[in-house]
């Protein structure tokens, strides 16, 4: 998958922008806060309808503008083009007449009313500095990573996740009303059934994805660390030790029954896949606690590069890979090794604050320079001189 065209109107700092890309490697150079991350964010938004940086769409609209428009054209390895356009309402939308107040997404001209209709159509994987949180942050960051990654791979996953969350909220409400003594405990039963079905399905998908990702990440990370580090992922959660669907359902039912008194007392559900996590282990030690900053950063990148491999294997289409400022802190040797690892991808966009020697050596790439929301195509020589 690669992108051929991008057009932005009132997106972040860009009043208006049009870019064309060719197949292969694109390098975007610009100082910090110049708007280069916003370009990758826009591409990610078009491919998935979601920004990787915020879930509040209004923040994406240029300050003072009534709305923002994004358009992109993506082309698959089978040469199939997909055109996506998104309109986002701004802060003051709705006050003026004739302005829509809801986000609108169109794919090849047809309105998309549910995100799930687009899932997997334009596979994209993005790495940014915030992804360090996957390695060292709280379990919530890792669950979010699991959810976003698996939803792109399995059409049913997002549906199961939404059902699980809905059943969980309903069950918690019943727990609260039992606690305040006006509801019988039998009211839990129908929600337990829904929770168990969706939860077992989610656990199975997460288990399989983590396992596959672990195998891919071990190879990638071994390469990035000169074979010195063996990286392994281990799925952890209340249903992580069960091997098949029946066992997961049985285990979940058992846990819900065992913890019912405590759940009633707390007024929420204390067991289930909403507490899932996975651990990242390097040479037998948990990276989250004992890893150095550099080690954690490389591991985060390994996970994302491995995710791209899993997407290719499961969907049969290599994703468009967006790497936001991932090379600047690495040495030349490691930097060029990363570029070798992603060499086979049809679409790869890398941003960097400076044009280091690894990037400048890529005469096959398209170069762009960004400054204060202005963008121009350039050559490695010209970009270097500035």
């Amino acid at each position, binding site marked *: 998958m690669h992108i051929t065209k991008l057009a932005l109107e009132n997106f972040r700092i860009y009043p208006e922008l049009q870019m064309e890309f060719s197949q292969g490697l694109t390098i975007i150079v610009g100082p910090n806060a110049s708007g280069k991350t916003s370009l990758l964010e826009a591409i990610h938004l078009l491919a998935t309808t979601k920004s990787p940086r915020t879930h509040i769409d209004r923040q994406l609209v240029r300050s003072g503008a009534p709305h923002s428009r994004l358009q992109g054209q993506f082309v698959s390895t089978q040469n199939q083009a997909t055109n996506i356009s998104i309109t986002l309402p701004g802060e003051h939308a709705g006050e003026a007449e004739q302005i829509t107040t809801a986000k609108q997404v169109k794919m090849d001209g*047809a309105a998309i009313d*549910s995100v*799930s*209709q687009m*899932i997997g159509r334009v596979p994209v994987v993005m790495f940014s500095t915030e992804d360090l949180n996957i390695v060292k942050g709280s379990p919530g960051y890792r669950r979010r990573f699991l959810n976003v990654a698996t939803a792109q791979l399995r*059409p*049913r996953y997002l*549906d199961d996740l939404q*059902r699980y969350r*809905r*059943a969980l*909220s*309903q069950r918690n*409400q*019943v727990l609260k*009303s039992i606690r305040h003594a006006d*509801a019988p405990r039998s*009211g839990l*039963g*129908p*929600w337990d*059934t*829904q929770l168990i*079905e*969706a939860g077992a*399905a989610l656990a199975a998908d997460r288990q399989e994805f983590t396992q596959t990702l672990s195998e891919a990440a071990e190879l990638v990370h071994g390469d990035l660390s000169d074979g010195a580090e063996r990286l392994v992922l281990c799925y952890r959660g209340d249903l992580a030790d069960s091997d098949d669907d029946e066992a997961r359902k049985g285990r979940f039912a058992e846990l819900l029954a065992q913890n019912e008194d405590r759940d009633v007392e707390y007024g929420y559900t204390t067991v289930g896949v909403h507490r899932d996590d996975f651990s990242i282990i390097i040479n037998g030690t948990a990276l989250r606690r004992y890893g150095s900053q550099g080690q954690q950063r490389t591991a985060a990148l390994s996970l994302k590069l491995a995710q791209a491999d899993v997407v290719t294997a499961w969907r049969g289409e290599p994703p468009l890979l967006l790497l936001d400022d991932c090379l600047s802190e690495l040495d030349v040797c490691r930097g060029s090794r990363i570029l070798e690892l992603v060499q086979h991808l049809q679409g790869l966009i890398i941003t960097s604050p400076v044009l280091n020697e690894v990037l400048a050596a890529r005469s096959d790439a398209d170069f762009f320079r960004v400054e204060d929301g202005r963008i121009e195509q350039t050559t490695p020589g010209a970009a270097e001189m500035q």
Partner: protein
Amino acid sequence: MLQYARPLQRVIEELQRLPGIGPKSAQRLAFYILRSGPEAARALGEAIGSLPNGIGRCQVCHNYTEGELCPICDDPARDRTTICVVAEVSDLMALERSGEYRGSYHVLAGVLSPLEGIGPGDLNIDSLLDRVSQDGIREVILATSPSVEGDATAEHIRQLLQQYPGVVVTRIALGLPVGADLDYQDQVTIARALSGRREMQ
């Protein structure tokens, strides 16, 4: 801000309360009614105004009716040994339009949703159990939508019906829009059908 004349403003406000009607649709409808002349406007107003008076709930199935029994319960040709349980009268109408079903119905008037304060006591479940215990019912078809709430409601009723071993309980899923772009929905439906998770007994 520009204000409409009071009567027009009132119609716009009332129309806006209807599901699926936003400010712009409400304006358009209000102007249409105004332009269509006093006769048409009065006829519409009367039809709407007399709606609550003439309509009640069927004593057997809770469908809307003008009399004690709805046309379906009153029809001797319908199979009374089969009851199809639906959430709303609109679901009943959808099934009737298919022309495939010749049994009777039971309208729950909603689905379980603790978050919205709807528990088993708020639905027409007791009257369903009365019917099943008395009438020599052979089959109950649970036709609530395949949402989490619809599934939980079906599950709740299934559990209650276990005390009548002679009654077969089946589950059908409504709610898929026909003719819409089902690309993704198809994938989900097929995945679910394959995993057999809709089976109730």
